[in-house]
């Protein structure tokens, strides 16, 4: 009955109750959306770097290198020579090394030249068809298949560059050999092909594009000095662990095979590496950064850096969310103080009809709790809806796939509990006033 009265009291003042509800719902939505985005971003970012301890690429921004090679977001920092990279790919401390070569795209989807190891990293097999075996054969991600309308056996030509527009390599047609299952990773939006395809297409391009050639000249110049230093070091390490080299031969098979027939100027964009033990994590990146003209970036470090960069933005939003929640609590406070004052005769009447004081306390708290729970539920729906909308409109562009966003987490529950507690706290003073109401005086002054 008390709950019923509380509910009816709220309905009796629909505008006021509506305002409180709206404030509560908005604050809850903002806070829960933040919680969800933070969690999802973290999960997504960390899922992608699983199995990649270090990325070897051209000098430049380490964050850019990670974003371009692991997350397939940014433009690459440049190319490195396969010959240089191979010294580290065959390093005894390296468990596996996956070379990637970027440069072309199809309808905005990146074509990545790599080896089977790329798929092995995800333990993936094509859902339909087979893996690529020969140059110009490709395996495409689930999203690519769906959005670009590619099926098994279809052929297409890549566009130079990572944008939607650019020079089309009409003379080289890719053939779809396999389609990967959906993973929720950026892999869904990739087209994978053997390294040789990329080399074959760009053999001619090197001569056509002057700036590429210029870059080559520069790189070859620097590279000579570094080569010896790196080589020397490498040799020493290899000597201590002669068995290591043998064991990862498989992972590097494709690149080794191609090595024989390719000129020393063969380039790749980056190498994704996993180490055998944490020791390498300390040694190799520093060694590469100090002694070669290549760059080693550690994804875990870069992602932490990225998150701390984005952190200040979410912090502002979080403060805004709590501010809204405080405002909602204030409006509940005002509504209840005013309400209990206006309805003090009703409260006295309830007492005179045999209602215990505790129930009056409960009545006021129940009003706040009903509003709080309704607001939190509304905010939850609103927040998830906003999340879903963002997913549809914005995040697909960044290869971010926020799945399972309807799931409730502990952080959600904590936020909801904190908001409910704020509501009840706001109701505390009016509730205590109702509890201590002097019914005789109230009724006498009627």
């Amino acid at each position, binding site marked *: 009955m008390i709950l019923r009265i509380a509910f009816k009291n709220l309905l009796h003042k629909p505008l006021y109750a509506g305002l409180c509800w709206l404030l509560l719902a908005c604050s809850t939505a903002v806070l829960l959306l933040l919680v969800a985005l933070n969690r999802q971003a973290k999960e997504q970012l960390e899922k992608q770097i699983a199995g990649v301890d270090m990325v070897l690429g051209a000098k430049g921004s380490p964050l850019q290198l990670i974003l371009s090679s692991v997350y397939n977001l940014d433009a690459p920092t440049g190319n490195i020579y396969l010959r240089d990279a191979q010294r580290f790919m065959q390093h005894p401390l390296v468990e596996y090394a996956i070379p990637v070569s970027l440069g072309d795209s199809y309808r905005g989807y990146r074509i990545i030249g790599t080896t089977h190891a790329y798929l092995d990293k995800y333990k993936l097999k094509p859902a339909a068809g087979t893996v690529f075996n020969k140059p110009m054969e490709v395996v495409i991600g689930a999203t690519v298949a769906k959005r670009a309308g590619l099926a098994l056996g279809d052929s297409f030509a890549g566009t130079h560059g990572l944008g939607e527009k650019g020079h089309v390599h009409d003379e080289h047609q890719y053939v779809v050999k396999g389609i990967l299952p959906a993973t929720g990773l950026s892999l869904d939006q990739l087209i994978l092909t053997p390294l040789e395809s990329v080399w074959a297409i760009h053999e001619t391009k090197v001569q056509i594009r002057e700036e590429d050639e210029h870059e080559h000249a520069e790189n070859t110049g620097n590279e000579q000095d570094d080569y010896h230093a790196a080589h020397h070091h490498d040799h020493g390490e290899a000597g201590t662990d002669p068995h290591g080299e043998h064991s990862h031969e498989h992972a590097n098979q494709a690149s080794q095979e191609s090595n024989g027939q390719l000129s020393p100027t063969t380039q790749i964009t980056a190498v994704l590496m996993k180490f055998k033990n944490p020791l390498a994590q300390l040694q190799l990146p520093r060694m590469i950064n100090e002694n070669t003209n290549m760059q080693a970036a550690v994804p875990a470090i870069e992602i932490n850096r990225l998150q701390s960069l984005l952190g200040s933005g979410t912090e502002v939003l979080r403060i805004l969310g709590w501010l809204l929640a405080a405002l909602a609590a204030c409006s509940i406070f005002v509504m209840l103080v005013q309400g209990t004052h206006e309805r003090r005769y009703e409260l006295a009447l309830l007492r005179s*009809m045999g209602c215990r004081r505790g129930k009056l306390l409960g009545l006021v708290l129940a009003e706040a709790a009903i509003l709080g729970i309704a607001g939190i539920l509304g905010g939850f729906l609103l927040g998830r809806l906003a999340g879903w909308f963002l997913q549809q409109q914005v995040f697909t562009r960044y290869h971010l796939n926020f799945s399972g966003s309807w799931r409730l987490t502990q952080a959600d529950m904590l936020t909801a509990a904190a908001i409910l507690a704020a509501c009840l706290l706001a109701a505390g003073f009016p509730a205590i006033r109702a509890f201590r109401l002097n019914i005789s005086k109230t009724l006498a002054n009627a």
Partner: protein
Amino acid sequence: MIYTKNLAYAHPNGRILQFPDMACAAGEVLLITGRSGAGKTTLLHLLAGLLQPGGGEINVAGTFIQTLRPAAMDAFRGRHIGIIYQQSHFIASLSIEENLQLATVLSHGPQKQERLQEVAEKLGITALLHKKPGRLSQGEQQRASIARALMQRPQLLLADEPTASLDDQNCAAVASLLAEQAHQQQAALLIVTHDSRLKELFANQIILS
């Protein structure tokens, strides 16, 4: 049904009010009159257990209510005492029907739809049951509040200026209704008033000075 002995009330400002001993048997009516400020409402609140007396004793249906603790007093009041106020108060957000039901719910009495219909019929408010209190006229509100006081078949009915805001016709109607209901239910009816129209209707009177 109710009697008091040496009842006194200590006002917070230090003034002490002494009340004459009084008694009222089941089915009878006792009119308590006096000029404004003589402590009529205070007496009513003491009898209803809304105020704690400064001394003396009050016995309602065999219980000395001054000894009851607040929670027990609330429960006792809900079960045994029906109060009719000068200004009728209702829970504005509930309908008349729900307001009447509230009396039984709050005192944990048996909920019977027949009782509601019976009381509503007696007081002629059956057609008003689904309305919100705010939409009723003064006379209708007063009748509804009498109905609410009767819902629990109380043994003591306390009325505080029940006719002050009513015209002559309604005044007579409400007065006879109250007396009739008290008699039917064998409840003691105490009316606190300075309304001279009522003095002519009830013989049993106590004057506070």
